[in-house]
């Protein structure tokens, strides 16, 4: 399923967080949205998933579920891993009576295997490492077979090996489910290893759009500052 965003605008009070942003992600593609903290990256994901309302513009999707993988996993801490993953199948009105408990158990085991985990169904989120929590949140997100997966900083706060593992699973999920993906990140490894296309945001506007290779060429001042992680450049950090 493709996603097209046209002239999207979102302001919080006086401040325009997203200012006339347009882009398109084709079916099965992975788009990375990059930029410094506070540039409006996560807001775009929340607008696409309808968690917040846009002020103006269009978000065109061709139907189907949109899954969201949250930055800090957002697993239900009072539920076990099994109940977290099976949550939508147990609680969603249109899915409640669709599967028997035996079928749900099989689906949960299959999704857990897809993210490289097994035998942790009875554990609670607090008993898992950060990387494992993230993978469980992947499994929970894909349990309904979504056509779009939105990842909000999926490798933030993880060690390099766990980050590589998460990047592998982002690719694996795309390959196995064919889902279109948008990954918000500021980690170069995630951009290089997972993205087909990249857009860079600054002050709510797109300042670069291209492939990861083009980003690394550092042809404009924004990409140069971002890739070299320099303080000097057109982008000023809030409070810097």
């Amino acid at each position, binding site marked *: 399923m493709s996603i097209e965003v046209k002239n999207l605008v979102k302001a919080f009070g006086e401040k325009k967080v997203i200012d006339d942003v347009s882009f398109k992600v084709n079916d099965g593609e992975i788009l990375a949205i990059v930029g410094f903290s506070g540039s409006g990256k996560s807001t775009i994901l929340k607008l696409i998933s309808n968690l917040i309302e846009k002020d103006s513009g269009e978000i065109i999707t061709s139907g189907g*579920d*949109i899954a969201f993988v949250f930055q800090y996993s957002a697993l239900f801490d009072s539920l076990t891993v099994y109940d977290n993953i099976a949550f939508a199948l147990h*609680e969603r009105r249109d899915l409640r009576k669709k599967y028997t408990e035996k079928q749900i158990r099989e689906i949960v085991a299959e999704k857990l295997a897809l993210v490289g985990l097994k035998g942790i169904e009875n554990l609670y989120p607090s008993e898992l490492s950060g990387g494992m929590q993230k993978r469980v949140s992947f499994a929970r997100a894909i349990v309904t077979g979504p056509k779009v997966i939105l990842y909000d900083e999926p490798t933030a706060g993880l060690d390099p090996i766990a980050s590589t593992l998460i990047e592998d699973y982002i690719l694996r999920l795309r390959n196995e489910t064919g889902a279109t993906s948008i990954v918000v990140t500021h980690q170069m490894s995630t951009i290089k290893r997972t993205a087909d296309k990249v857009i860079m945001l600054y002050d709510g506007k797109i300042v670069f759009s291209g492939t990861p290779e083009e980003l690394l060429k550092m042809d404009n001042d924004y990409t140069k500052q971002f890739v070299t992680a320099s303080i000097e450049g057109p982008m000023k950090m809030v409070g810097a």
Partner: protein
Amino acid sequence: MALIRHILKQTVTYKLFKSILVNLVDFMEVMGNITTGLFEVIKAFFRGELEWKELINQCERFGISSLPITLSIVGMTCVIIVSQIAQEMVKQGGGNFVGALVAVLIVRELGVIMSGFAIISMIGSSLASELATMRVTEQIDALYTLKVNPYGYLFLPRVLAGMLMMPPVVIISSLFGILAGALTSDLAAGLSYRVYFDSIWIGIFAKDMFVCLAKAVCFGAVIALISCAFGFHASGGAKGVGIATTRAVVWSFVAIVIIDMLFAIAFFF
């Protein structure tokens, strides 16, 4: 012009009106959140979104876990009252009415209001902080992205549990209070249990019990609804959880006192 505006802003009148306006806006926002919660709960109920397992869990929380504290508070309140009035009433020749007085106090007022206060401090605060924590850790956003209605999943079982469990809690704690009154009147004034229990039925009528149970249902719903609404609309991390919990407790206290007053005016004025 700017100077005049600056001077005006320094005046006490301006600051007073500004403060009133800010509080009014906040009040309207809270009332809006609670009303939205109520309508969404009713809608979710009629759409068959009730999760029975969750309802049972919440009933256990409202009923079983709150009982020790409600029993203690109502029981001790009765001991305090009876130990002060029993001796005096016996002296004045009104020993035959100690049970009646305690029963009227407990059934009409103390049993339900004291249980309400106990439930607010124990269950209401925990509901508000639970939902507020879910809000600030994006668990409520996760419900939306999983296409599960948070009003149906979070509000509905809690509000229903409040309505279902508050009456039995009030009945049990009121009975306990009356028993505590009997024990205290025996110890403090040497009043026999028979005299005490015989007089109970002089003071209370079916109407008193009906009003008591109706109040209990209302209090249960209101406490759960206000606590859920404050938790649900929390923001700002750990501090936000604290603020939401405190405000939920304060609003619940005020709300049940107002409802209690309305019941008193409607049925006993």
